[in-house]
Every structure is written in C-alpha cells, then in structure tokens.
C-alpha cells in the first residue's frame, strides 16, 4: 500500500504514459523513470490524484534556552548570550552580540511576596548590599527578611543597612512614602515618584525599571485602583 502511494507520487516524474489500476508485478516497472525526450509530456488527466509528499526538509536548529533553573537563588547563574539569534538560529535582531561575559542574578520583581511560613500582611526587610548588575542599567540590592534573601532593583539613595517596607494595604489616609518602600498605588499620595510599577497586583513589576527612570504618580490618566 505504501509502495503504491509512493509510486503514484513518483509517477509524475515519469514521461511515459501509464495505465491506471495495473495489477501488482507491473508496478515495479512503472517506477522506472524513463528519459526519452521524444515522448509527449504527460497531460494533467493522466496524473492520478495523490497526497503531496515532502522530499526535502530543513534542518531544525538545536536551540535550548539557558533558562532552565526553576528554584530561586541568590547566587549568580551562568547565562548564554543570544547574539540577536532566535530559536531557529538565524539573526532576528541585528546589532546585538559580543560584550563581557555576564552572570545573571535572579531579581524578584514582585516586591510584596511574603514567605511561605510567615504571617500575611505588610512586612519589613533590611538592605544588605547594593551592587552593580551587568544585565541591566540599574543597580541591584540584596535584601533579607525572615529566613530568605533576594535581589531587588535598588532605588537611588538606597544604602546598606536601610529598612524597607513591603505592603499591600490601602488605608483611608495616604501613606507617608519613604524611598525604597513598596505600596499599592492607591495608598500613595499624588505626586510621589514611583518606579517598578506592576499593571495589576500580583503580576510583578514590568514598567519603569531602568536606571534614572521614575514617573510621577497622578490621578489624571486611566488609573488602576487597588
């Protein structure tokens, strides 16, 4: 059965006219490709309908992402640079590549992330060090609270030994915001400079993360109340 399909497909390569529904043994003869130039070209009515067959296939790129670590660590993780190449191996974005080797420090962008065993509610953390991160323009700070340590994006005047507050509580009065604290936007007074903003609570900071970036909290644009 497979042979019949194959020969039907390869029959379009043959220049001799073939008879349909030929019994078994003569099928082998029909598989020969004849190279006789004097024979007329086959008309479309002679070609039997058959499924298309792929006779060549492109090599797939052996691309495995370096992001295989599932557990959070404070230790820097080895990374592989992309050079502008995508998963097919071809350049998708030009101009990227080279530069010093870098190790990736896993940054926790969800500030309000209480530990598993701790009580729910606002909690404080202490800044241990502020250091340079090769993977981004902003500096990063190692903060420790409870039983765990994590990296966060450091604000401008953050120093070792500071205490920062992470809260998800919105009260009736606006909070007197200190630099480095994390509050929901609804709890902050209008006019505070904010960064590391998330579009919905629990999503993680996606906006205003670069060095020197800061936006003024205002009530004029479409605001997310939470």
């Amino acid at each position, binding site marked *: 059965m497979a042979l019949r399909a194959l020969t039907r497909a390869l029959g379009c390569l043959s220049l001799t006219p073939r008879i349909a529904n030929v019994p078994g043994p003569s099928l082998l003869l029909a598989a020969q490709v004849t190279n006789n130039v004097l024979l007329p070209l086959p008309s479309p009515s002679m070609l039997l309908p058959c499924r298309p067959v792929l006779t060549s296939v492109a090599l797939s790129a052996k691309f*495995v*992402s370096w*992001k*295989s*670590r*599932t*557990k*959070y660590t404070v230790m820097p993780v080895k990374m592989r640079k992309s050079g502008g190449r995508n998963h097919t191996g071809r350049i998708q974005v030009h101009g990227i590549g080279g530069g010093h080797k870098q190790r990736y420090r*896993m940054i926790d*962008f*969800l500030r309000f*992330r209480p530990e598993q065993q701790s009580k729910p509610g606002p*909690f*404080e*953390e*202490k800044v*241990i060090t502020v250091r340079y991160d090769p993977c981004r323009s902003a500096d990063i700070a190692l903060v*420790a*609270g*409870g*039983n*765990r*340590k994590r990296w966060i994006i450091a604000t401008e005047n953050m120093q070792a030994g500071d*205490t920062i507050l992470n809260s998800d509580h919105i009260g009736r009065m606006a909070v007197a915001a200190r630099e480095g604290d994390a509050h929901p936007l609804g709890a902050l007074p209008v006019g505070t400079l904010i960064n590391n903003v998330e*579009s*919905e*609570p*629990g*999503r*993680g900071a996606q906006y205003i993360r670069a060095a020197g970036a800061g936006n003024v909290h205002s009530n004029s644009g*479409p*605001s*997310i109340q*939470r």
Partner: protein
Amino acid sequence: MALASRSARLALARPGRLGLGSCGAPRRGAYEWGVRSTRKPEPPPPDRVYEIPGLEPITYAGKMHFMPGLARPVFPPWEPGWTPPKFRRLPPLHEHPLYKDQACYVFHQRCRLLEGVKQALWLTKTKLIEGLPEKVLSLADDPRNHIENQDECVLNVIFHARLWHSTEDIPKRETYCPVIVDSLIQLCKSQILKHPSLARRICAQNNTLSTTWNRESTLIQVHGSSGAQLNAKDPLPPIASQEEVEATKNHVLETFYPISPTVGLQECSVYDVNDDTGFREGYPYPYPHTLYLLESANLRPHRFQPDQLRAKMILFAFGNALAQARLLYGNDTKVLEQPVVVQSVGTDGRVFQFLVLQLNTTDLASDEGVKNLVWIDSDQLLYEHFWCLPVVRKKAVV
C-alpha cells in the same frame, strides 16, 4: 455623561477588562523561573471516559496498535525489581526513617551567617568580650614560657610554608595554610621538655561533631567535621569567676529585626538528634581543648570573611562544649557549676582569630538567665606580606 472618568465607564461596561480577573487575582501571575521549553512536559490527560464511574472503557490495548475511536489505555506503572546503581533515585524524604515534622536548622562547615558574630552570639546565648582574658594573655607574656629564638623559629616556619615547602615558585594557599598551622603546633609541642603537662594532649583530625539544642522553639544543630582538634586528658579550668557569670544575667542579647536568626542555616527535615562528640567512650583524651579552623581556599570569594569565620568558630566551639557538657552532666537544661571551656583558632594562613568560649549554662530555650561568655581576639596578622620572587629592576635586585 453621568460618569466623568473613562475608567469608571469601562468598569461598568466590561467588568473583566480592567485587568482584574476573578476575585482580584491577576490575569497573569508574576514571572516564574524556568522556560517552558526546558520544563518537563506534562503527561497527556486521561480520556474523559475514565471519569464516568462504573464504566469499563474499551481501549486498544489488546489490538497492540492505535485505533481512532477507542480510549487510550492506562497501564499500571511497571516496577522493575532492580535498578542499576547508575539510575537509582533516593526514596522521597517523607519515607526516610529519620524524617521529622519539625524542621531543624543545621549549621555546617560551609554555612555563612548573614549577620556574622551577632547572629552566632544570639544562637548560642553568649556575651562577647573583646580581647583574650588576662589568664591567657599572662601565659603568653610570661618570659619563662617563651621558646628560645622564638622570632627566628616563627620566621623559619613562615618561609618554609610559603616558599621552601613545595617545588612551585609560588605555593598556593591550599598548600601553605595547613603547613603553617601544623608547624606552629609542632613549635608549641617542642616545649614538652619544659612543661611536661603538654604531653597530655593529642591532635585529632576529621572528627564529626553533632549537637542539637532548642533556642526559643527553633531546633538548631551544629554538624560537621572541623580541621584539626586538640584534645586533652584534663579539662580547661574556668576563666570567668562566679560573680562575672552572675553578672551576665543582666546582659540583653542583640536582635536583628527584620532578619530571622536562622538565616543562612540549612533547613533540614531529616536529622538525628543524638549528640556526638566525635570520639567513642573510653578515649584517653576526652576533653576538647582547642579547635583549628582553616580557610584555605585559593580564590577569595570561596573563603569566608573574617566576621563569618569568627561566627563559625563560635558555633563549632560551642557545639563541642555543649556535647562535652551533656556527656558529663546529663541532658537536663541547667546552669553548670563547673563551666566548660573550649578554645578555638581560625586562620587563612596570614590573619589569625583567637577565641575562648566558656559554657556556663545549657538552658538555651529562654532569653533570660545566665549567658555564656566568649573572648575574641580578632584579625591578628602573623606577617604583613610575603614576596616569593625577588623584584628585579634594570637587572638588579631591588
């Protein structure tokens, strides 16, 4: 328009559009580590036929090949009787005989305490005194205790370890650090003729220590093997008098909110609570005298900072003292009439830290009461710098 703000109108028109999904949960959670392509693929879900109770689905298992229309068979997991050692997996932690519900925080040789000495003092309920006690200092200052040509001998030791000992031009720290410590101990042993009581000591290496204690409802365990340990036949006499020990009752231990005191310790659910000094009963030298902790890694990030090294020394000396106290006086928590004293020396080949710890009480669960005492002499340089190769400028040795 009744409602002025566009967002409020949107909220009424399309409730889900504002970004909050059901019950205030975000549409997409915060970033999860691990790219989907490297995660293990989920097994395909079983056919819906299996959810109907009491029905036996007809599968293509008997036909030995796939048949569209029949259910996918679910086979019982195959248990091969034996796995080759290369592919053997450990049984899950819950089935281990030593598994306990309460987690224990274990301190081992590679634990770096975040707060350093402050954290070690809190964990061991100890009061810190800067500088070694006068009894020990007087021993060092007494000219009768000095070795003849002391400075010359020590210089020879340094040269031997850092230059003459190995065939390389510049020996690495892993080579010269243990050599320095061994040679200095040998120098001390050379005084046996003058002080015969020194012969009642022995040097032991690679013994495993294990002690557990409760500290305000957290279980803390010290477990590990230190480098070299000096054991003696007689215990060290207590250094602080009874009045000084009673005076520590007023001392308040420093806390470091918001950091928990167990940060940096390894949380473990499978552990053994039994105390172990590292030596069996009937060992001729039962009392721990001095511990020697070496920081001999070649690369600086692998070595401990001086603060972290001092914290490690405090904890290991405390572990030894506690194990010894429990061996002598039993497992009850009480204030000891005869305090146990253990000394410790930590070095990275050039900078030395000295420590004397006196264990006054085994009642560590509460914060009040008598505290233990520790005298620390930190950052003593044996030598400033050591150049192995001569500096040559313009074909002349500078």
